[in-house]
């Protein structure tokens, strides 16, 4: 048993699977960082991913190809996010309630649209999906090459977005504005920053990335849409944001941990270890809790998260 677990073949297979499984979480969580840094709590990530997953297959089917599908999926996620933005920013509604409503709404709406668009068939409709896109030359590097450079295109994109989002949030003027809006919107407003406009934009970007995460599930991991196929990944992404302390690199670590733990429990099952499967299925969550105890020194969320910004009456 131990020999199997430390063999290079097992380890590289496990790491490759971990990256595959971290990818949708990473897209969604990076989007979540942007909206939460602007003070908008996006509980509806799950629903936006699900919407993105469906409309990615629609886009891929009708517009010819997974890239168009991914774009359509992202836009559909952003459109759902527009509901959140309108409710949370303009109407100043409770963001948790709106987010939860979006999740329930998306579950029903995607099931409905799938049946309307693809007709009701007794089998899922396959659409053009992503193939493997190994990076030339680099993927031939022993061990590491396979782990890092033997994936589908969206996997690279997700991990490349990590430094991009980090640079944007922490090293640019717009990123500073974003954070100011999420920390102390009144001060931001007095500095001439248009709080609500930034909140709208951040929510839409967050929705777009959640939609792309969904697109990866339907077009990267599979080639079709099924009811509720996101299956809770949006909530895991929400956890990863907190776990990663609203920092893209931290969030990458968190999503990799979730992915690795889940990939490991599957391999335990697949190797036929005589451990009750309930126990094995628990592993990812157990690992998360243990890690939180170790590293989870009080994470401080953006101060104005979830608080609607109401201009003072002059």
């Amino acid at each position, binding site marked *: 048993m131990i020999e199997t677990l430390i063999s290079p073949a*097992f380890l590289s*297979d496990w790491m490759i*699977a971990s990256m*595959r*499984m971290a990818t*949708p979480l990473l897209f969604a969580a990076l989007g979540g960082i942007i909206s939460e840094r602007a003070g908008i709590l996006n509980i509806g990530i799950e629903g936006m991913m699900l919407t993105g997953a469906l409309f990615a297959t629609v886009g891929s089917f009708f517009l010819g190809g997974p890239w168009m599908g991914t774009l359509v999926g992202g836009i559909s996620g952003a459109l759902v996010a527009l509901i959140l933005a309108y409710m949370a920013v303009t109407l100043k509604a409770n963001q948790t309630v709106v987010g939860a409503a979006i999740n329930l709404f998306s579950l029903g709406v995607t099931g409905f649209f799938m*049946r309307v668009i693809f007709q*009701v*068939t*007794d*089998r*899922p409709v396959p659409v053009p999906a992503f193939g493997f896109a190994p990076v030339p030359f680099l993927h031939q590097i022993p061990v590491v090459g396979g782990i890092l450079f033997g994936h589908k295109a969206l996997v690279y994109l997700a991990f490349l977005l990590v430094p991009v989002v980090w640079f944007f949030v922490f090293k640019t003027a717009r990123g500073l504005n974003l954070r100011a809006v999420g920390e102390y919107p009144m001060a931001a407003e007095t500095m001439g920053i248009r709080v609500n406009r930034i909140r709208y934009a951040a929510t839409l970007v967050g929705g777009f990335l959640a939609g792309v995460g969904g697109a990866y*599930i339907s077009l990267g*991991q*599979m*080639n*079709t849409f*099924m*009811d*509720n*196929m996101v*299956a*809770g990944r949006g909530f895991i992404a929400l956890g990863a944001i907190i776990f990663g302390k609203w920092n893209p690199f931290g969030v990458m670590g968190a999503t990799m941990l979730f992915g690795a733990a*889940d*990939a490991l429990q*599957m*391999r335990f*099952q*697949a*190797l*036929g270890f005589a451990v009750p*499967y*309930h126990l094995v*299925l628990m592993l990812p969550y157990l690992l998360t809790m243990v890690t939180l105890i170790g590293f989870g020194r009080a994470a401080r969320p953006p101060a104005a998260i979830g608080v609607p910004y109401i201009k003072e009456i002059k």
Partner: protein
Amino acid sequence: MKKKRFTWIALIVLVLFALSITAGCGGAPPADDEDEAVRVAIVFNSPVADSGWNANAWQGLLDARDKFGIEVAYSENVPLAEYEAAFRDYASQGYDMVMGNGFEFNDAALAVAAEFPDVMFGIINGLEYADNLAGLEFDNVEAGYIAGVAAGLVTQTNKLGFIGGTEIPSMTNFIKGMEAGAASVNPDADVIVTYIGSWDDVPKAKELSLALMGNGVDILVPFASAAIIATPEAAKEGENVYYIHNPNDAPDLHPDVYLTAAIQSTEMLVEIAVSRLLDGTFEGGPIVGNVANGVQDVGSFGAMVPADVQQQMMDLMDDLAAGRIALPEKDG
């Protein structure tokens, strides 16, 4: 003012919409013209057009209608609290048999069956019975046995992978049969059992299949709808990996990786219940679908299945139909 009126209109529209969804009763024909036709109704707790579980049961009734000239009706999206009311409605309208699609209808059927002793009730996957209440179920041990024999005969690596939803009796019974079937033809074959831990996590089912393939499994047996969709996609990423379909025959769906199917026909099962109603042999208790009564079968064979294996499978069907094979006892 204007805003307020808009809010009211929106609210009314929403409520109407919600009502139309929850109470969306379907194709019940008006029960005015009383003729001699036997009438059978079925109640669903989700949409009838789900391209699966409900659609199959409804198709069974439609087949029975065409074959026996009965009248059929359904109610869909019936919430738990309305099960009894829906049953009572049909029973008091003089329907001869009322069915519920799923064991969750069992309690409601028990209650209403007692009130209408002359109406027959049939619950698909039902577990409790009464004099006029039958449970329609599949012999999952037998279905697993069919899959196990096919997989055991074809495997090159002697590793067979099972992918289920969560650990419930229909799963464990199938596994029992699969292990016995594989062992009967290939003592070296090892059945590796895995569970997704959910019923709709399609990507996870695919990852689980890939993990099994990583351990050398070359025959995948998915037994949950998420896995049946995902597993063939995983098999296509491997070499010489095949899968066994369920519950219908599907040779043209993924021909490159298709081995055969373990057929479990809800349509046939429903039709049997209706035919028993018509010839007066319908009685309370289990109605079990198996090879002998044509509900279960082996599917068409993929191009990779050698002729002698196909012959062995056909012989197995004869043996199962004749009761010549001792299957393991089923769980609860």
